[in-house]
């Protein structure tokens, strides 16, 4: 907000300077006078960006854009719920979430997941995704359906440790699916971490 304050002052001072220079211009020869008058005129014009567009118009349109965003977000939330109800009902739903151990900065390149021995997903991480995970974001890597009962989840990670050395780990986890949605958190840690390289939390 300092900016607005600065701007107001600056504009005021600029106008004073321009007026002053205009005065000098009148004292000089004809060509120079014309030149300076022109320059000052152009300078004085240099205040408004778009004269035909008022702030009210910009604000009014912005409010309409905000309204449509609200509508679309409402639709998006309903679609998410519909998708969950239709495709991943709670009695069969299983979701696998990936997190990184707090403070761990190893480079995670990819994660592969098998459910009951079958490949279900494989994800290669972008820089932005890795940064989001390192900042504490949680990635829902997989959502699918399984029957109630015992299941096995296999996780394989590939990445780079210190000195750009390859870092690969595998781990397995048994879980029981009941009628409620099953959420499994896969916690990944880099080499040298005090935590397990791949931990699980139901």
């Amino acid at each position, binding site marked *: 907000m*300092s900016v607005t*304050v600065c701007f107001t002052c600056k504009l005021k001072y600029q106008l004073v300077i321009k007026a002053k220079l205009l005065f000098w211009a009148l004292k000089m020869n004809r060509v120079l006078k014309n030149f300076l008058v022109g320059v000052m005129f*152009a300078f004085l014009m240099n205040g408004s960006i778009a004269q035909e567009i008022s702030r009210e118009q910009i604000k009014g349109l912005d409010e309409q*854009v905000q309204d449509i965003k609200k509508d679309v977000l409402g639709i998006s939330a309903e679609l998410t719920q519909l998708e969950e109800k239709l495709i991943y009902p709670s009695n069969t739903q299983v979701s696998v979430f990936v997190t990184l151990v707090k403070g761990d900065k190893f480079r995670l390149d990819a994660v592969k997941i098998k459910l009951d021995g079958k490949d279900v997903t494989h994800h290669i991480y972008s820089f932005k995704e890795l940064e989001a995970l390192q900042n504490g974001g949680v*990635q829902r890597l997989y959502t699918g359906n399984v029957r109630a009962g015992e299941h096995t989840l296999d996780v394989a990670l590939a990445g780079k440790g210190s000195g750009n050395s390859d870092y690969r780990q595998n781990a397995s986890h048994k879980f029981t699916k009941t*009628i409620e949605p099953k959420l499994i958190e896969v916690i990944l840690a880099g080499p040298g971490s005090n935590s397990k390289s791949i931990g699980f939390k139901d």
Partner: protein
Amino acid sequence: MMRRYICLFGLCFSSIAFAADISPRADAKDLYLGEAFFYAFQGEYVDAITRLDTELGQFNRLDDPNLDPLHFQINFANFSVGDFELSYRMHQRAGRAIKSVLEGNVAPSVRNEAAYRLARIYVQKDDARSALSTIEKISGKIPGNIRDDEQFLRAQIYILTGKFDDAIKILQGLQGAKEYAGFSTYNLGIALIQSGQELKGFAELDKAGQISSDDEGTLAIRDKANLLMGNRLIAASQPALAKQYLDRVRLNGPFSNKALLGSGWTDVSLGKFDRALVPWTLLSKRNVTDKAVQESMLGVPYAYAQLGLHGRAALLYGSALENFASELAKLDASIKSIREGHFLKALVSDELKQDKDWVVKLRELPESPETYYLLELMASNDFQESLQNYFDLEDLRKRLESWDGYLDAYESIIKSRHDYYEAILPALDKQFRALDSQMRLRLEQRQALDDRLKIMLVSPRPDFLETADERVMREKLHNLAEKHKNDASAAANDIRRRIKRLEGVLHWQIYTTYNKRLTDAYKHLHQLDADVAKLRTIYRSFVRSRQAATQSYKGYDDHIRQLRNRVRDSREKVVTLMARQGNMLDMMAINELDQRRKRLEEFQVQARFALSESYDRASKKQLDEGDVK
């Protein structure tokens, strides 16, 4: 750190731009909350808000919310959704979300943080009065991570509302804050000037203009302070002093061109035309689209003319005219390009989105306008907001288009399920009904046995615990006894005696093992209970599956139809708004280019006059020199 760059952005382009800074680390205990942050950290706010809204909606519908891990961070979640909405430029809704936390029964540190954020939103919305009443609700403990930010914001609000003395007091206290080094001094100077204490204000600006730092933001505010002081002193007819300030501005910062131009003008006003040539010549070799550079193209030959070098001046006026003509042609082509819709098309192209220097890259696309002329406009808050709205609308348009496809897919899934289940369910239901009645019968029988055994604990009935063989044997003995009851033969007595003995043995056997039999009967009933439990589990599982089968295709039609209508309506609105927003952007760009065009035309006229006068003077000088010879 982020906030300083926000200030810097505004500093360079005289506009406000508050981007909400999402908490640097999520530390979410709830997986779905963490998921929302995963998207927010990547700038995907629609996904972040959708996930968190869905989670909050589900949380609010829970009978016992304390069982949900989100309850540990429900205030944080409500904050976060407001924060995400603010980042998504939804100021109206973000204000409401955070306000609900502010009015809730929360810890002072939480309420204070909410008040700070809400006040920031009001400042962003140019609503200084609401910002003031909100920031003044802050009392008690302020979280350490926002302490300086809160003070800086408070000072800004006080300046906006004319409470300069309060602002000065706060800004004086912020002089040691590293994060606001330079910014706090500069704003203190402005606050002092606005409160009427000009000399003190200039002293602070002078201090801000001498700050040593290697931080780009601090260096820029230093340049800004020096430029402001230089301009102020020119206005106060102190060009020599003004030059000292203008010469402090870095040669390659965002204010360098304006400072070089001003420096030249101070020399001119001191009559030192040869000195004016130094900054102006340097400036005239810079990017020709810059306003100051264009002005210096006239300034340099003007200074030469004043030094009596009319021939050189004429040549440079000629060169300036060539440059102006070429730039005018570029401007005309750019205006034409915008009118033909190439500007908007280029703005939303995927090619540009991948490039962080997209504004520069834009000019390289075929038929797109000359963006160097639009840089200042593009950096202005109004244009940025409008452009971002246009990007957001384009994103919404794409999403809505794909959602139509999702709804088609859902309907297709529902139809497949309908066709599959409708064919098999009637037979399954019939079979289930038969098994269900059989099961009910057996369960009733089990219950009868249980009741009977309980009664037998009080009133023993050994006969109830006979085995099948014993029962058959007893029947046989009874029949034999009936048969020989009236037998008068010699062996009859012996037979009856034997029957009696056998009945006695049977009776003895049953009565003496009664307790064991009763215990065994209980054990068997418990074994049966285990099987009954299994049966009940299978039964419930079947009922759930049966319900799930119905729910998987029934009851969606109305919902999907409504969603489809809403998607269609929203698409229409988005298309209309995109057209209006696009038209506004086009108008802004054309107006800007038109203004630059008019300015260049003015310069052209001035240059032509000056050129002819320089030629005249050069010719006259030549003639005079010829006469002398």
